[in-house]
């Protein structure tokens, strides 16, 4: 895959988000409202997808934007676009809440995924607006074999370890590792192809 396919090119939306984050970092509380207006639906959708409980999700969404307000001064471009950064916070928060819910139900012992502590990441489709990006990511996911896609979704949206996924799917651990490796690399490559098609 050509290296240039993964360059981050900011869409107009993303450039506007950067301006909002800079205002937030300078203490402009109206900028928090602006960020909320732009991203609350997207953050809410992701959080609901993960915690699967509307009331829990609303608390998480509010916490996500509050964390964004508190950490705006620490945002840098190498954390991806502001949207990717915010969604990474949302995912981390939602997985934390999901684990709390599971512990509450005694369904699952506490676990610690390092992913939640990793810095947010760049989005290969950052130059697309939200709807375009969503369509292409869905299309890319649809190209994956179902068993590979399932592993990706259990890892990403449920925060399960590979051992837990193996238990859930009644598959050997080695099989889960192989599926995860193949799935994510194929997703990355497909997104890049879609990216190239868009620019050509």
């Amino acid at each position, binding site marked *: 895959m050509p290296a240039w396919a*993964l*360059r*981050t090119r900011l869409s107009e939306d993303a450039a506007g988000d*950067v301006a909002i984050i800079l205002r937030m970092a300078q203490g402009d509380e109206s900028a928090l409202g602006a960020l909320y207006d732009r991203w609350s639906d997207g953050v809410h959708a992701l959080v609901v997808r993960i915690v699967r409980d509307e009331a829990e999700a609303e608390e998480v969404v509010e916490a996500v934007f509050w964390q964004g307000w508190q950490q705006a*001064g620490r945002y*840098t471009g190498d954390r991806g676009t502001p949207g990717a950064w915010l969604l990474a916070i949302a995912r981390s928060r939602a997985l934390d809440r999901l684990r709390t819910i599971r512990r509450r139900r005694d369904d699952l012992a506490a676990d610690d995924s390092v992913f939640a502590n990793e810095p947010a990441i760049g989005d290969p489709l950052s130059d697309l607006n939200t709807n375009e990006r969503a369509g292409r990511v869905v299309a890319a996911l649809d190209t994956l074999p179902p068993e590979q896609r399932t592993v990706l979704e259990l890892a990403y949206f449920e925060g399960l370890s590979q051992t837990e996924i193996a238990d859930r799917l009644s598959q050997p651990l080695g099989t889960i590792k192989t599926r*995860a490796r193949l799935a994510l690399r194929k997703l990355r490559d497909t997104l890049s192809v879609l990216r190239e098609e868009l620019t050509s």
Partner: protein
Amino acid sequence: MTIPLTHDEAFAMLPELALGLLAPDEAAVLLAFVQTSPACQAELASLRGAAGAMSSAVPAAAMDGAKKSAMRDRLVSRATASAVSDATGTSDAGAERAATSVPGATTAPPLHLEPREVLPEKHQRVVPGQRRNPALQVLPWMAAAASIGIALAQLRTNSELTAQRDAARAALSSATASATQLSGQLASRDSLVAAMTGAQVRVVELASTARLAPGARMFWDRLSNRWTLITHDLQPVPAGRTYQLWLVTARAEKISAGTFNTDAQGRAVVQATYALAEADLAAIAITEEPEGGSPQPTGTILVAGTPAQTR
């Protein structure tokens, strides 16, 4: 875990790291290896990008309109309040912890001040039919007068204390606002200095194509892919128009790096983040465009620079 001894082994495991599938000790070992391998770093970044893009694939699920609006109001109110409390240093750490550990917590309920307790009637002693010395009868009046005097004095003292307290609060609030503003300015300056002084920062001079001499200087931090443009003597554009900054690649792609306007002195600071190989940068240019910017430049190039004009 099997500690990766070879580059290939580490490289193969990167999807598991990007997805958060590894146990913490496994992840720590692999991350340590990644730090030593630029190829692994690039691979991990791209895989994390792909994993992060999955957030976009979630079907839209908008919140209830009233709840959404109420949440927005709460957040903005809390942000306003925190701007004050953070700067006072009275409760910032605690408030922050509370805010993060109790997601969704709203502002504290209003303080209810109960009226002072009134002495029940049974405690108001009345002894009828008792004869009193006239001189002694004055004493209660004198005592009452003295009590009133003391009460008035206390009232005045309380009033003065209240006024002093209010004045102190106002002064604190003013100082807090100033501190918040200064803190924000300082953070902004720190960020700016960092963007211009890094070891990997490259400087591109942009010269004017007009008779007047507006100009600009671009600081390109190749380590963080951060671009910081500082203009001078570039007259502000009128309403409905904007300046737009372009990165021109070797393949003649014009990449928008943002829109901006200058102040009355022709100054502006514009920052953008964009990953670009050094050899791919052909030029940097500023054009005047309709408000909101253009997908591709439509206006005359006002200021431009090339990598040859670097230092």
